């Protein structure tokens, strides 16, 4: 069983949703990211999503676009991110998922990416511009490695396609809460609850909800019906305003707030 699967099993027994914070690796630099991830883990993160910066992030709004620009500015590469994860593994066993566009993976090499991921202790990948139809070579490379490939589903995804995504995805399914890019405003809660219900009936994997969750209160609302809650732009924007020296402390405080709200959500 992968570290991600194990985490969701445990959370199920404990009867609470997973808290999954997202930060951009290398924003503002990799050593700060290291502090941030440790603070998030101590603050109650059940999984951590690390963004790999890309020059043209199609699925991201302005907050994460700016974070990617800062990370590239500081010279962040996918190889550097693998080294960071290897370092982190001496101090934390929190499952780590890389969220990356396909091109950086393609240029690093599919085989080499998977080998580096295994060696460093990366548990899974979310690749927002790699749909199941195009994912053949990547999935073949992942086979037998225990590394999860987490697919995204959207409000526009029709029922039969949800089933396909559920079959291709492993670890969990990432449900994009809104038709839009990261950082936009969340849809109406009861509609989201209905949508998540629809997704959960179609797939057997845990369903985590992300895009647009802005506060600890909203996280708790979504956590009442989802298996996991992903908080990205809201955290990244706190890191942006805190600045390098206060970023980790600010991220840790936010994580504690979200995680205690989530624990109270059910």
């Amino acid at each position, binding site marked *: 069983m992968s570290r991600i699967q194990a985490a969701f099993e445990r959370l199920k027994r404990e009867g609470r949703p997973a808290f999954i914070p997202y930060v951009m690796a290398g924003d503002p630099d990799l050593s700060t990211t290291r502090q941030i991830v440790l603070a998030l883990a101590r603050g109650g993160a059940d999984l951590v999503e690390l963004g790999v910066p890309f020059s043209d992030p199609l699925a991201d709004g302005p907050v994460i676009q700016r974070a990617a620009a800062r990370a590239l500015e500081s010279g962040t590469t996918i190889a550097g991110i693998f080294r960071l994860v290897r370092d982190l593994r001496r101090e934390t066993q929190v499952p780590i998922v890389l969220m990356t566009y396909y091109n950086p993976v*393609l240029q690093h090499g599919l085989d080499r990416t998977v080998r580096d991921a295994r060696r460093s202790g990366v548990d899974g990948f979310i690749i927002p511009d790699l749909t199941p139809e195009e994912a053949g070579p990547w999935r073949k490379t992942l086979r037998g490695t225990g590394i999860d490939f987490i697919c995204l589903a959207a409000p*526009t995804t029709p029922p039969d396609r949800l089933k396909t995504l559920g079959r291709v995805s492993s670890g969990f399914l990432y449900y994009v809460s809104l038709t839009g890019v990261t950082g936009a405003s969340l849809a109406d809660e009861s509609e989201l609850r209905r949508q998540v219900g629809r997704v959960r009936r179609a797939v057997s994997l845990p369903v985590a909800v992300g895009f647009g969750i802005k506060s600890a209160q909203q996280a708790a609302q979504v956590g009442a019906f989802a298996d996991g809650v992903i908080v990205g732009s809201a955290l990244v924007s706190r890191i942006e305003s805190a600045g390098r020296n206060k970023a980790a402390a600010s991220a840790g405080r936010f994580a504690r707030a979200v995680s205690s709200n989530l624990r109270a959500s059910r």
Partner: protein
Amino acid sequence: MGESVNRKSRSFLSPKHLPDASGHFGPYGGRFVPETLVPALMELDREYAKARREKSFRRELAFLLREFVGRPTPLYFAERLTRELGGPKIYLKREDLCHTGAHKINNTIGQALLARRMGKRRVIAETGAGQHGVATAAVAARFGLACDVYMGTEDMSRQALNVFRMRLLGARVVPVDIGSRTLKDAISEAMRDWTANVRTTHYILGSVLGPHPYPMMVRDFQKVIGIEARRQILKAEGRLPDLLVACVGGGSNAMGLFFPFLRDRSVKMIGVEAGGLGIKTGKHAARFAAGRIGAFQGTMTVLLQDREGQVKVTHSVSAGLDYSAVGPEHAYYRDARRIEYTSVTDSDALEAFQLLSQTEGIMPALESAHAVAQIRKLAPRLPRKSVVIVNLSGRGDKDVQQAAEILEGKNAR
């Protein structure tokens, strides 16, 4: 990669079979987009497949191309240019005479008809030179659709006239002030808008780029250029041309001219990319000279990128060629050695801009001037008997101010 091209290298003889059902041209093409957009792309693919089989759709498209766009455009024998260069007979395919001033409208008319069929009341577009934006704004006005056009702020300043044109036509021009502030950033922003508004909005992509079905569909709407040119040259010369030349930004005017000739093995084809300040300077947009395969803005193709897969910022005097990636079908025919690609510099293009103005009384767009510059280079080495068609993809009115600044700035020094 090489293997799959070899395996398929015979199939370029029947280009009608490309792309395959999932939008691939050998290793290129496909659909690399956020999941939210996949259902919309599938719907577009289905609607387009249905529409192209319907007589009524084809009839309406043909009517609009004739009465609104002004087709067929002439295939014009450039007698003085031919004499001046002292080489082959040079014909110009006059896409500059299309309504709104460039070939772009061949595609926007087709896509506006599709948007209407799909019940989408709003269209969006990206634009570099502004020609595609103007062509989209014009058809949006013609069909009563709301229209937002994304444009990099760098391009807005060098193509100010087209910004005003779009506004006059009732479109909203949305400034894009991120990244390189040019075409690639405008495409990203348009795709983000589409992701948010996909249920009500159709994205009119302006070249043979992006996720399937766009490269195929835009090619199909543009191939009217080559179909006409083939008929016209057979009438004028009684034979096929020896060479076709076109500039390649995303590659829609080039593919439009080339496609109907792909099976005519005797016809050579050259695509001309923007050489900017020269390949060695790194300030250019010559994807085939310095690019590698990668996934970008919805498609697998050849693009300018660094070792890490970060997409590079390009440079060209011509906004319409200033883009980091090339259409996937071009990449396929480059590998298959059916189409040859080269580049000319900013200054070559500016000289050709003046040469055509002064020998023929035709001001080409700076994009099209790249094709003219290439034939100017080649002509002395080609036999006088041979026949060449140069695609004059657009007119130069939009570039006059920019050219004046560069050329008179130079004269003043």
